[in-house]
């Protein structure tokens, strides 16, 4: 653990990659920067050796996040961050492996990898930044674009049903699942900390704003207006448990939504290796 108390901003600067050019690719006001800050602070609190951290992403705005951090970073192909991360973690189980992904990356093109990583309960923390739209390609509908909302591929309103990433992860066997938003930054830091400390597959859904496309197309205003929406329409899990389905309609339920103890994939495989190797002497 760090012994010197740093200013919050210093901590973030300390983890940014020397020589990496700024400004970032993100629009001013993008929630991705808030997630990056919270993630850095959570990692710093854990005091992890940054040479022992691998951060893996796919393709999309959120997937640009690892590039700025001074850890081992792998910007992979669209939807495939989890299997790349699985390879790293399984090869070097001692490494801390974090995946940063988005709603399109994790739930559309990468949906199959997502459920299988949950099922395997491999010790990876996935942060799914959910902005309900494809930002990088210019505002197309995603598996979390709400019903009737406008995107450039749902110009008359979305007629499709949505994935709830947290429910999907719980159903697929993830052993830690939490939701937070980019408005609730101290909460986000807490959820990330819990997820990173959890042994097994953990998912944190970070509800975020794409005011450039989602906000503009759906008349939700600028970044600040969208953050206010998150503030007004979020309910903590404890309070939500006392509310009716009707009352919860259109609300984000935040907090640790699910946690259970389960054997972890790399540990179980290691036991198998130990048994086979001792058999051979």
């Amino acid at each position: 653990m760090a012994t010197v108390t740093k200013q919050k901003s210093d901590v973030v600067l300390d983890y940014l990659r020397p020589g990496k050019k700024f400004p970032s690719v993100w629009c001013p006001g993008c929630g991705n920067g808030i997630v990056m800050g919270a993630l850095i602070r959570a990692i710093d609190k854990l005091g992890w050796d940054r040479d022992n951290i691998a951060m893996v992403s796919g393709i999309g705005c959120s997937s640009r996040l690892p590039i700025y951090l001074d850890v081992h970073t792998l910007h992979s192909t669209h939807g495939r961050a989890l299997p790349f991360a699985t390879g790293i973690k399984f090869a070097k189980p001692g490494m801390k492996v974090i995946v940063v992904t988005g709603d399109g990356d994790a739930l559309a093109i990468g949906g199959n990898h997502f459920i299988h990583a949950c099922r395997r309960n491999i010790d990876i923390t996935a942060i799914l930044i959910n902005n309900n739209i494809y930002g990088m390609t210019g505002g197309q509908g995603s598996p979390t674009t709400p019903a009737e909302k406008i995107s450039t591929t749902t110009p008359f309103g979305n007629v499709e049903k949505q994935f709830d990433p947290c429910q999907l992860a719980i159903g697929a066997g993830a052993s830690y699942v939490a939701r937070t938003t980019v408005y609730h930054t101290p909460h986000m830091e807490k959820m990330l900390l819990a997820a990173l400390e959890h042994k097994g597959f953990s998912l944190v859904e970070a509800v975020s704003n794409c005011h450039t496309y989602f906000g503009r197309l759906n008349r939700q205003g600028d970044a600040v207006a969208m953050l206010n929406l998150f503030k007004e329409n979020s309910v903590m899990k404890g309070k939500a448990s006392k509310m009716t389905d009707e009352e919860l309609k259109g609300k984000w339920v935040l907090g640790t939504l699910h946690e259970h103890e389960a054997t972890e994939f790399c540990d179980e495989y290691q036991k198998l290796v130990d048994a086979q190797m001792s058999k051979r002497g």
Partner: protein
Amino acid sequence: MANKKKKLMQGNMACVEGAIYSGMQFFAGYPITPSTEIAEGCSRELPKIGGRFIQMEDEIGSIAAVIGASIAGMKSFTATSGPGYSLMQENLGYAFITETPLVVINVQRGGPSTGLPTKVSQSDTMQARWGPHGDYAAIAVAPSTVQECHTETVRAFNLSERFRTPVTILLDEVIGHSRGVISLPEKGELEVYNRVKPTASPEEVLPFEMTPNLVSPMAGYGEGYRFHVTGLTHDVHGFSTNRSDEIFPKLDKLHNKILNYRDEISKLRIENMDDAEVAFISYGSVSRAALQATAIAREAGVKVGCIQLYTIWPFPEKELRQICANCSKVIVGELNMGQIIHEIERVLPGDIEIHAKQRYDGEIMTPMQLLEKLEEVL
């Protein structure tokens, strides 16, 4: 060698033995006929040596995990067949641009699509060169016997580590499933090459630096050199670029680090070519038929020779021109509708007649088919 370990095994299993001999410790794959015995063999053997086997949810995930493991520092490979090889292409492209060493075994079967799962084919020859989109140079090797499955797998790992590039091993159903007697080499008998790691301090190391041989030393994750890996076209630091003066060198590097060393990568078997007027050219299981046909035709007094390609890509053009210099005709045997023949037409001088013997019904080429073709062209 008197005490050498001899075993009867399938070509697929000889590949597993060759991979283990090379120091491979990681396999990720997905079951598909006729390559499945490689995955099964790895699931049995890897735990015994402290290695890792994982059955992924599909072939896309398999090659992704293999790339991740290789970047983490482990020699890694996967095995598949036609449909699975197609699924792997995008991430194979990622391995090319990120210069990640790995080996992919493609036990070829009939296609396109599901095609002929239990039948032999060589119709992925061109895919092994041009599978992923974009510009790069590719390496592919092809054994034809059980023993060669071992030696060519070792060679494939060496080439991938030496040139920091994915290498494809083209098997076919006959080579993968036939059993033969193999002498398993002792440690040290075959060369095993390990990737060059950086020695300078982390502050001084550029992860994709331009070295004289164009291969950048490669650290594994967690070894003190924190670096960035991306499928975007990148500069020497590993960060994405849109600058012409950085894009040209990167793509030239992907080509030239391999093409500058093609003499060392080329490998052929040459039989009876000294006085040959006609030559069979082939690879894989067709070469077994061609060697047999050559032996039979020689007995009957025909001046025919046989060239077997172990290196398919980069195509051994200089060697073929030299070996065929005194031939008037060649017969190119393939289990497809004509793939490698286009390369031969490209590299041989115009005064050599080029004939094709192609089979694409899922059956092996027979010596008799080649002999009949030989008589036809004489």
